[in-house]
């Protein structure tokens, strides 16, 4: 299906991407607005970025968010990969359908329910709320996203590679680390990145499970937005968008290059 694009398809793509990108673009443009009013252009300025650096509360929140995101996505990647292995590799076991249900449900579960239920758990067991409860909550809901990403790689994984390693005398545990893991690593890494972004992004679950002293960046932004829209928020948003764009674009260019190299090699091999 790779004909040239018809006018209908071009229109759909142009309108679709305009809809997706214009709001973000405007947000970025207005972060450089000299005027205090967000919607009226008062000339180019970077003053709001300077103001960011002096806003201790915001920087604190950013630091908390990064720590939570890093720690939770790390644990979620390990747990999610294990869940994916359990679901694809080990056939039937007791309570498997309950397990797969619990793995897929958080993907669509309304955040208010997840947040409330986790809060009530933390209260019931008397866990002091703050950094650690947010981290636990984030591990729980992001590990399911990791599981789905890794699982979709594992189902297309050629099992005979693992069998070949076993056959050549390599025990199962070692086989996982020297054969399976290196080959599913791209999926594990994108699972980690997904978990990291979801954790960075989360407002509702963090609001429920937080305690005094642990305010995340989305919570800080949210409370400022409720008080009124300011260019300063545009500035912090632009910084976050910039970081994400650079990382994602860089990652996809790297994979694209690798694929192109691989394709060239394969063509060269076929020509033998």
């Amino acid at each position: 299906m790779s004909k040239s694009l018809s006018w209908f398809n071009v229109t759909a793509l142009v309108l679709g991407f305009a809809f997706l990108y214009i709001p973000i673009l405007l947000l970025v443009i207005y972060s450089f607005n000299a005027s205090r009013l967000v919607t009226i252009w008062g000339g180019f300025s970077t003053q709001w970025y300077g103001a960011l650096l002096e806003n201790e509360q915001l920087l604190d929140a950013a630091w908390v968010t990064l720590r939570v995101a890093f720690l939770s996505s790390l644990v979620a990647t390990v747990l999610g990969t294990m869940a994916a292995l359990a679901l694809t590799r080990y056939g039937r076991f007791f309570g498997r359908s309950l397990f797969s249900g619990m793995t897929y449900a958080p993907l669509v579960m309304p955040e208010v329910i997840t947040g409330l239920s986790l809060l009530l758990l933390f209260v019931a067991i008397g866990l002091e709320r703050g950094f650690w409860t947010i981290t636990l909550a984030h591990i729980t809901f992001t590990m399911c996203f990791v599981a789905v990403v890794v699982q979709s790689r594992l189902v297309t994984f050629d099992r005979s590679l693992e069998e070949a390693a076993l056959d050549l005398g390599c025990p199962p545990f070692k086989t996982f680390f020297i054969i399976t893991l290196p080959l599913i690593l791209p999926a594990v890494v994108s699972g980690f990145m997904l978990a990291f972004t979801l954790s960075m992004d989360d407002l509702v679950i963090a609001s429920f499970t937080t305690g005094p002293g642990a305010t995340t960046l989305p919570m800080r932004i949210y409370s400022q937005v409720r008080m009124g829209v300011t260019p300063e928020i545009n500035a912090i948003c632009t910084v976050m968008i910039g970081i994400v764009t650079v990382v994602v674009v860089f990652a996809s260019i790297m994979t694209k290059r690798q694929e192109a190299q691989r394709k060239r090699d394969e063509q060269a091999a076929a020509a033998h």
Partner: protein
Amino acid sequence: MATAGEKGIGRLFVIAVPYLWLLVLFLVPFLIVLKISLSQDVIAQPPYAPLLDLSQGWAGFVDFLSQLNFDNYVYVLDWNNEFLDAYGSSLIIAAVSTVLLLLVGYPIAYAMARAPRTLQPTLLMLVILPFWTSFLIRVYAWIGILSQDGLLNQALQALGLIDAPLEILNTDLAVYIGIVYSYLPFMVLPLYAALEKLDGTLLEAAEDLGCPPMRAFWLVTFPLSLPGVAAGCLLCFIPAVGEFVIPDLLGGSDTLMIGKSLWTEFTVNRSWTASSAVAVLLLIVLVVPIVIYQNIQARQLEAGK
């Protein structure tokens, strides 16, 4: 693979760790929510009657049962308390948004799937990229566009299309725009996945057998993309029903959505028992679509595609 070596401790460990984690941090919390929704409010910390006290043995269990009451459900299901309206309006807003998402997302996914192969990865990345940026930021961006003196009204007035600014922000319309905008990647991706798999020769066969392109679309392409349509719709509908941030930031004070009601009940009215009842009822409303979604997800992932 059922070899002797694999049935050992490694297998048990890999299954048990995530399993126990999800049991303790996903399933047990729901049971607690269920229990608290059946408890009475007390002025204490925590503000509800105690959970099951196992130290009392059988008597404690009988006591536990006798303490269950449905007052919170009576409260939530009372027409005067707006929760029923909120459930209804959430379902309607989510359903309408899902239809809008399908109408917007299908042409995009279709155009992507028919684009030149070399262009497709780039297009795919362009759809996914906004998803990586913060949800909150994307909703926030619309405040500046939709507000009374916002960019949209400025543009429309400058073009002379309207005289007085339109009131869009703080209405249901803004909520629809916000949901369609934020959830669009969730709709486009499953649709693209289904359309991209479609064998181009099927359409050629249909045309070869005398079917004009438009009819070929309805007779071949669309039916074969239905799994993608189902996945995309559920992936958008279910979280949209419980959405909190979008109605809170873009909707008006009269925009009723159950996620917002739950949040208000919890943070403003501080009734943990009533918010638990709201959550349980929300889950009951969503249980059918969630189960359907899980089945689709499990089938897709476990069948190996």
